[in-house]
Every structure is written in C-alpha cells, then in structure tokens.
C-alpha cells in the first residue's frame, strides 16, 4: 500500500482518517507539506522515505530541541536513521494532534525522552532531557551540582518502585498530575 506523491486515493484517505487522530483536512495538508519535501524524481516513487535532515527543515520542527528524537521515534526504517515515510509522518502528526488521547501522548513522550531506547528513563536520559529543556547557552544550563539534585528529586518524586529509573507507568502517573500536558504536547501544521 504505497502512496504516490501526486495524490492521495480516496480509500487510502478514509483509512488514514479512521486509523489516526487527524481530520481529512489535516491529512491533506500533511500530504501537501510532505510532497514539498520530496525531490522531483522522488515524487514518482511510491512510499518514499525522506531522510531526517529534510524533515528537520520543517518550520514546526526546526527549532525544537527534541527534533532528532522525534524523528527517531516515529521512524520505521531498519537502519534507525530517523527517515520518515508519509505514513510515519502521519503517525507523528496524529500523536501530536488535538484529539490524541493522553495515553498515546504520554507513550510517545516517554519514547522521545528515552534517549538510549532502553525502555526506562535513567539518570543519563534525565540529564539529557534537562539539558534539552534548558537550552544550549552556558547561563541557562544547570551546574553539575544542580543537575544531581534535580535528578535525585525527580527520582524521589516519580520512582515508585525505587529501582532508580522511571518506567512507562511511573511516567504516565506523573503526567496525569499535570493538566497542561495535553495542550503543550501539540504540533499543528
């Protein structure tokens, strides 16, 4: 089931609409933006895979500190290089859409924050996460001491089984305490 870049078939469109949280207009807009990323000869091939560098030129992702992780998580490529097909792109938009459920959003947020892909957030993951949040400049980065304290505090608050890492259920438990999460975990094209 491939999609040629020129247009989206009606059956395929309704299938995408049923299986994702996107509306028809959003899917068509996504298709338009995706085909803009393709080169001329790629447009004719079905199911083309766009490398991560081109995906990251999208304005919605360009300045996001988590952009590389986002591409990596939603990519289904076997080389794990972060390249996305159109269906991966739709997955991305669906998880970040308005109507996605809290479970889906927290699931993907967990995978995005899991920098070493081992299924839990340990100290290294948390440190990288905080560094992404606070930015690149020296004045905003936390000192080593502050980072240590912060990570200890985070683990104390969220690690219920005290194994030193935050797994998916604990993460979802923390997320459920914040009513702002659903509205901030959104990307709209």
């Amino acid at each position: 089931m491939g999609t040629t870049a020129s247009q989206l078939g009606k059956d395929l469109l309704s299938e995408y609409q049923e299986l994702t949280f996107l509306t028809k207009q959003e899917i068509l807009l996504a298709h338009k933006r995706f085909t803009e990323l393709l080169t001329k000869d790629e447009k004719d091939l079905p199911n083309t895979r766009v490398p991560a560098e081109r995906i990251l030129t999208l304005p919605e992702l360009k300045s996001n500190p988590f952009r590389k992780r986002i591409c990596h998580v939603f990519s289904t490529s076997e080389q794990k290089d972060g390249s996305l097909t159109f269906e991966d792109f739709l997955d991305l938009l669906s998880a970040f859409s308005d109507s996605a459920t809290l479970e889906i959003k927290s699931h993907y947020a967990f995978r995005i924050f899991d920098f070493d892909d081992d299924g839990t957030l340990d100290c290294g993951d948390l440190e990288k996460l905080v560094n992404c949040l606070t930015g690149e400049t020296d004045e905003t980065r936390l000192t080593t001491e502050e980072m240590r304290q912060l990570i200890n505090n985070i683990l104390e608050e969220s690690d219920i089984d005290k194994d030193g890492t935050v797994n998916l259920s604990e993460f979802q438990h923390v997320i459920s305490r914040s009513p702002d999460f659903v509205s901030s975990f959104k990307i709209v094209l």
Partner: protein
Amino acid sequence: MAYSVNICQMDSESDFENLGESEPGQDSFQLVAEPAVSTQRCPQTLQMDVFRECTRINTEQLPLTASGHMRDETLDREQMNSLQRHRWSAATLKVLASMPSRTAGINSAAVIPRHARNLSRLHQHQTCQDSSQPSRPMQEDFVQANIEEELSNEENKKEQLVSILRGLSVSEGMSKLRASPLSLADKMEVRQLAFSDVAESSLIRNIPCYSRLSMSVSRTWHHCLFSCLPVLTSLQLWHSPIKRLSGRFGTGVLSYFLFLRTLLLFNLLLFVINGLFLVFPQAVNPPPRPHDSDLNNFTGLELLTGTGYLSQSVMFYGYYTNTILKNCRAVNSTAAESPDLPVCDSNKPQKVLYSIPAAYFFTIAIAFFTICIILVYSISKAFGRGFQVLKSNGNLAVKVFCSWDFKVSKKTSVRLQSEKISTQLKELLSEMFHGENKKSCMQRLCRLMVQLVAWAACLATIFLSAMAVHYLSEDAIKSSPLKETELLLLAAVVSGINLLLPGLFNLCAWVENYDSPSVLVYVSIFRNLLLKVTIVGVLCFRWLGRIAVEPKRYGLQCWETFVGQELYRLLLMDFIFTVLYTFFGEFLWRLFTKQVLKRNRMPVFDIARNVLELIYGQTLTWFGVLFAPLLPAVQIIKLFVLFYMKKSSLVLNCQASRKPWRANQMTTFFISLLCFPSFLGAAVSVTYTIWTIKPSSGCGPFRNLTTMFQSGQQWAQELENAHPILSWLSRAYNSLLENPLFLFLAPGVFLMVIYFHTQVIDGQRRIISRLEKQIENEGKDKQFLITNLQAIHERSGLVSP
C-alpha cells in the same frame, strides 16, 4: 525445575556469547544467544537453566540477605539500592532490559518476525560454514528453535490483538485500534486481519433484504456523521490566527484569546435568543410613534450616548410595548394604529398570539438560566481537569516532564522558553536546598511595612474613586436637562479609572517585590477585581437604589431606558479607551523605549489585566440585557474588533513573558471569576429588579404592573384560564417552589451527596498510598532477586562481572 524462557534476536550479527560449558548438574544459568544492541522492540525472554535442584537452595545458601548485605563480603550500599548499571554482567543487563515493565509500551508486533526471519536465515547459512566449535551447532539449533518460537509468540500477540478487536463492535474496535501505539503500517495490517473477516462473514450469511438495507443506511449515516464532525470542528472561529499566536507566545497568551472567543460565543447565544424571541417580533410590529420625538436630527454623538434616535429604537427597553401581538386587529381599534392588519372576525378563532411582556420576561429568564447552566458545566469540567486525588509532594518531576510547549516554533520564543524553564528550575532547586532566605528581623519588618503601605494606598485609591463616581453621578443627575456631552462624562471617568488604576496597582506590586510570581499575579488580580466590583456596585446602587426608586425626581419618563443608555455608554467608552490605550500605551511606549531609552525590551502582555477587563465588560452586558436587549450585539462587535486589535498589538509591540504562567489553573480561575462575581452579581441584580422594583408606567412592556415578575404570573394565570387542564401545573408550582420545606430539602440532599463524594475521595487517597507502598515493596523484591541471581552467577564463576 528449569524455567525456560526464550530470547529473540534482533541483530544480524552472529555474536554469540559463549558462556562456557553448560554442565547439567550445576545450578547455574546459561544464556543462549543474545543481541548486542537495543532490546527496544523485542520483548525478550531469557533462557535460564537455574534452580535445577531448587530444593537444595534455601535462604542460607543465598549469597545476599534481604537487607542487601553479602554474607561473606560487603557490597556497596548504593548498588543494592538501585538497579543501575554498575557492576552487572551482560546477562543480568539483558534480564533487566527484558523485564515487562521496561517493554510495556513497545508494541510493534510486526517488526520482529521480519528481523527474526532474517536472522534465522543468516544462522542457517552460518552453521554450514562454521563447524569449528562443537557446541555451536547445538546452540544454533536451539537458537533456531527459539527464533521460530519467538516468531510464533509475536504472531500470537498480533492474533491476540486481532481477536480482541473482533470481539468489539466495529466503531469500538476502530477507536481502540486508533488509540494503540502501533505504527500506521502495523495498524493497517491488524485492521485488515480483524475487520475484513467480519465483512466477509456477514456477506456469507443470508441476510434478508430489509436488514441489509438498514445496515447500508446506518453505515452511510455513520460515514456522514464522521465526515461532518471534523468539518464542524475546523469551522472554529479564528483557528489559524490563534495557532500562529500560540506558536510565538505560548500557552499563556493563548488562554486570553480562547477566553475572548468563549465570551463571543456566549454573547452570540444571548443575541440569538433575544433576537429570535424578542427583537424580531417587536421589530416586525412597531409600536405607534410618540408625539414628542425629534428624529430628524441624527447626529453622530447619538451613537455614543444612545439618546435621540436610538432611544426610540428596538435597542432599548422603552420601545417595547405591553401589547399582545395578534395577526388581526381588534374591531374597535382605529385604522391609524395598526393599518396593515385585517379586522378580527370574532367568529374565527384567534391564531397567532404573542404577548410581548410575557415574551420579554421569559426570554430574559431563560437566557440567564441557559448561561448559568453552561457556566456551571464549564467550571465543573475545568475543576475536574485540574483536580488530583493525591497531592504530590513536589512538582519538579511534573515541571521537567510536562513544561515544554511543543507548539512554540519561532526560534526566539524557543530560546525564551528554555530560559524560562531554566530560571524556574534553578529557583525551585535553590528554594528547596537552601530554604527560605533567612532574612533578618529588620528586613522582614521593613518588608511588612512596605506591603502594608502599598495595600493601604491601593484600598484608599479604590475608596476615593468609588466616592468620586458616586458624587459625579449624583451631580450629573441634579442638572436636569442633560447635555449630551455631560452624559458621556460619567462613562469616561469610570473607564479612565478602570484603565489607570490597575497600572498603579501593578506598580505597587512591583515595589513590594513579592517572592513568588504566582502570589504577585493573585495579588494584582485581587486588587483589580476589588476596584471593578466597587465601581460596578456603586453604579448599581445608583441605578437601582436611586433612579429606579424615584424616577420622577430625576425627571425621567422611562428610567429603564436611561439605565440601558448608561450601560451602553459605559461599554462604548470602555472600548474607546481600550483602543486608545492599545495604540498610545503599547505602541508609543515601544517607540519610546526603542528610540529614546534604546532598550530592547518590549512590554509584556499583561494577561490578568486584559482578562479582567473582558470580565468587566461581560458583567455590564449581562446586567444590561434586561434594559437594552440588543446590548449583546454591541458586545459582539466590540469583542470582534478587540481580537484583531489585540492580536496586531501583541505581534508588533509585545514579547513573550519571562514569568511562568500556569495556563490551566489560571483559565479555571478566570472562568470561576466569570461565574461568581460577574454572572452571579448580574443575575442577582436582574432578579432584584424583576422581583421588587416597580417598572415605569409610561413606557416598556411592563407598564401598569407593580413588578415585572407579575407579567409572568399573569401569563401563567391566563394560560390556566384558557386550558384548565394545566391547573395541576400551577398547583405543583405553588406547592413545590414556594414551599420553604422543598427549598430546604433540595440543598440538604445536595449537601449529603457532596459529603459522600468527599468521603469517597478520602478513601481513594488511602488506597493510593497503600498501593504505592506495595509497589515499593515489589521493587525491593525485584532488586533482591536480581542481585541474588547475579551473585550466584558470580559465585559459580561462569561469567566475569
């Protein structure tokens, strides 16, 4: 007893970790094949040939006690306390990585078989080539069997999902599939498996014609519904401007514009209700013109003051008649009064009867009731979203995990957001670890003095402004033939006070230098609110307490129209002053700071102040609906223009705030402000007016009645007379609503329900804390087991740690 578990291979490398001789007699565990890389997508399982003779193993033989101390060695305490990768062997790491809690979310069922299949082919290839190590073929066969078993395991998993989906109805199954975290390709595969069979099996059976038709009808209906719904949601007003603003300024400013949109929808609802049932019938049947009207000279100023032409229009209360609209006129009425209607024939039954007084009363009542219901519903939803059963002991984790706003796309805004988060985290950390700043007694006293002075100053200014409004209003009324410009003076003064004093309050708050930004926000909101409540209270007293009681003293024929006009003027002046402030205040201030002061900091959009202004305008509208039924239309126009004006001012002049803004909490707070002081105050005033105040006898639909409420009673009486069947309704009404016992009983029942709910929540809290303890114990068990296994392993010396 051997526990056998399988490992599935992800890697195409044939990297077998040879664990040495696996002697059957020993209690050791051996691993068969393992990947070298991420175990992410593969729910792995481990082949353990442990506890072969488990009866021999009792606690004395375990190398580690439950408290984590080695029996014959001492181990690092920290290692015991966490399952961090300190000195675990690769085998233990694999066990850890394949635990269900770490593979819970990863559900990509379709990827594994492909990889495993590739791997199995590779291994087959290798066994042919490599025959040096005798143990290898055995292991590879084993591996082969494992891979196939794993393949079948994964197929089982997909089969499971498919069978679950088949058990549900199509729509439920689709929504469950949509909400599962698989990739789109996997979802399409599962869907094909699950639902194509359903379609096939339904065709195979012999379905009678009519049910097939009904099935196709329901299918098309569902299809229509699901395709209409997205269209309706995308018709949302101002969708793209709001998205652009949120991309640049974040969620805080977004909440202001969403609030504005909500208010617009409220006013639209009010306008539609009023328009359909009140304005339209009266506009279609205009009353006869009074003799002393001077409609010839229509000046532009009249648009501002609401006098002259507008006062004789459908805009204000005075226009409405206390007649009953019929589609024919009475026999003895003159042709001049209602020239278009044919004369009533007493033999024919009267057709369209529309009583304007009753319509006025019931329209207003029903509009208020509807809005009350909508507000209470939205407050309860907002509270429900923010309510947590168990209060957490800190919010650092929440802040780290949930505070990044992914909508923000502009580079400078992203940088600003990072700075904001960094500042917040640093402040929280320093607060936590260095405690409150130990201030000396003198400093604390000083700070207390400053705060007292600031509060006294604010309260004094509020009091003074209220007095000023009071005296000005008394003065304005005394000079009886009112010039038009003088009428505007009161409205201008009120708007000016509302504009300038909040700036003063902000300055006071800045001087006071509060520690936490949220306290600052709440203090300034409270002062602003107090000011507005005082001013509106003084004005209400003036209207209802003075003018309505003795209208003749003020030379007013129609006091309701006058009150309506005052409210109209207040709304307009408020709007004009806001426009002037936005233009002069923000734009010129920006030019000033850029050109003269040469600073790059632009003013920050003060969300709280702007929202309170919106609430103030809405209060006036709600109060004024009784006296000027078209006031919601004015408010709609005002809000519409305000949206575009504030948006462009924001984009040109302001920058995103550095201070944190808890959007959800503040939105809940603003909606509850909208309900409690604002709507409740307006509703109470309107109820008071309807219930007790005598309407003016010269104009309006309620002339010749003692109170406006009487019109409702009269209408009910007439209805009862016309249809005696309905007398039971009036008897029920009298016995229930006017019976004090019922009035006590209903709140009593509500209070009991609330009490039960709070008890339930308490119980839930206790259960949650018990469950947390239990999870902690399970975690300790897990650590205990893994460390013991590792220690046994090390002790038997098969694998170097």
